[in-house]
């Protein structure tokens, strides 16, 4: 009933707003393309001329140096011109609406917007209203989606585990507020991971979580049993202040990843975290830095995956 706003009439990816509703083939295409970008780092010239002359705007309504930087590096490796805009709330508090801002920037010959915003659905709104030749990449909207993060996580899992169709994956932490978790769940289920577990206290698990194709565990020790991949989510500090959790200490005791709990998973299980980590809150340092941790690979792969997304979108035809 609702047309997928990310695909053009040829079924090509025009915007990347969410993993939800994308075909597995599209996800695989992105991951395969990313493989080709991976070894560019080993060359003497660490960039390709693919997006020469294209203008990519990093449009961050919510500050995030990390994510912005990875997109910037990816764009530069594709030879695109990158313009960083940290809009924060300043122009909006002056009365300019989100769409005013976007229209102004479109007039500056933008080809792509990388959007980060604190409200769920902001990237969809922008994609619906930009001119057809402009592509929109959601770099995180509210609690909704963070598709490039999920894709780089899939890339990482595929890199270490090859076949996704026989894996048990556990996601641990604050799923309620996590756009990363939502996108990961869609990506995992779309790519055929047969068992996705969600582990956390009831206050941090969204309603109808099972409808997203996951199994919910409140007991971390049961939830980690025999899993191949453990994804730890960041626990925002402000969650400690409300009525969601009593304290960081109690959270760590029951839901923090320690070496003992890790031992419950498969011996070759990998540990992932989208960053930035709260050591001692959701993950113990010895685990974060341990042999099973692939957290730094995630960062490296993130560049290649974002390059793949940008090149695939930029090569698709705008919807008239």
């Amino acid at each position, binding site marked *: 009933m609702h047309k997928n706003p990310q695909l053009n009439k040829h079924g*090509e990816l025009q915007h990347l707003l969410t993993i939800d509703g994308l075909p597995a083939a599209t996800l695989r*295409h992105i991951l*395969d*393309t990313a*493989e*080709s*970008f*991976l*070894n560019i780092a080993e*060359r*003497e*010239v660490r*960039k*390709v*001329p*693919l*997006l020469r002359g294209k203008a990519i705007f990093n449009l961050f309504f919510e500050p995030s140096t990390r994510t912005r930087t990875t997109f910037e590096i990816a764009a530069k490796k*594709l030879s695109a011109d990158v313009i960083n805009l940290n809009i924060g709330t300043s122009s909006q508090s002056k009365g300019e609406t989100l769409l005013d801002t976007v229209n102004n920037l479109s007039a500056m010959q933008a080809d792509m917007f990388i959007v980060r915003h604190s409200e769920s659905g902001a990237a969809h709104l922008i994609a619906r209203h930009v001119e057809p030749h402009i592509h929109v990449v959601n770099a995180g909207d509210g609690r909704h989606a963070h598709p490039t993060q999920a894709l780089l996580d899939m890339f990482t899992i595929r890199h270490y585990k090859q076949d996704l169709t026989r894996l048990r994956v556990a996601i641990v932490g604050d799923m309620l507020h996590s756009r990363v978790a939502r996108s990961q769940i869609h990506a995992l289920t779309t790519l055929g991971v047969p068992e996705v577990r969600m582990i956390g206290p009831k206050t941090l698990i969204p309603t109808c979580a099972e409808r997203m194709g996951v199994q919910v565990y409140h007991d971390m020790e049961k939830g980690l049993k025999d899993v191949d991949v453990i994804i730890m989510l960041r626990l925002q500090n402000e969650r400690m202040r409300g009525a969601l959790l009593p304290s960081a200490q109690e959270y760590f005791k029951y839901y923090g990843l320690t070496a003992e709990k890790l031992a419950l998973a498969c011996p070759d299980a990998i540990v992932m975290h989208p960053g930035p980590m709260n050591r001692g809150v959701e993950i113990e340092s010895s685990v974060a830095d341990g042999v099973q941790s692939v957290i730094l690979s995630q960062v490296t792969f993130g560049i290649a995956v974002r390059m793949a997304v940008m*090149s*695939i979108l*930029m*090569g*698709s*035809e705008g919807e008239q």
Partner: protein
Amino acid sequence: MQLPEIDALILEMARQIKPHLTAESALVGIHTGGAWVAEKLSELFGMPLPFGTLDISFYRDDFSRIGLHPQVKPSHIPFEVEDRHIILVDDVLNTGRTIRAAMNELFDYGRPASIRLAVLVDRGGRELPIAAQIVGAHLKLAATQNIQLNRDESGRLSLSLHEKKD
């Protein structure tokens, strides 16, 4: 039109290449047809030659018009390009744009001492000042025709002609 026999063409190419081979030579095939030809060539030299493949998708000049190729393969150059004598191999030489892209990509790996271009078929129609030093066969084709290299399951190569779709 009678299309030439591939094995004969490749033998002819090998014969032309052989005098130029040195300890610093390396063979680079352009994905996919060029890589197949390069593979066959390397079997004929009787000496192990550094071997690489290029997927020039990220260097094409028609990206804005046709987008990214749906099946990009990673380029694989497992040797230092710096100061190498590169024999760049492709299946069909036409406009020269693919070769332009391949050379640009090669230079992003390093500065080769020289590049020699070896092609199975030169069908003419150049749009850039590019020429092959080693040519299996020259074919005169109508602008409406496409010539394509195919490989079957047993690894046998063959050429086929098609009318262009538009």
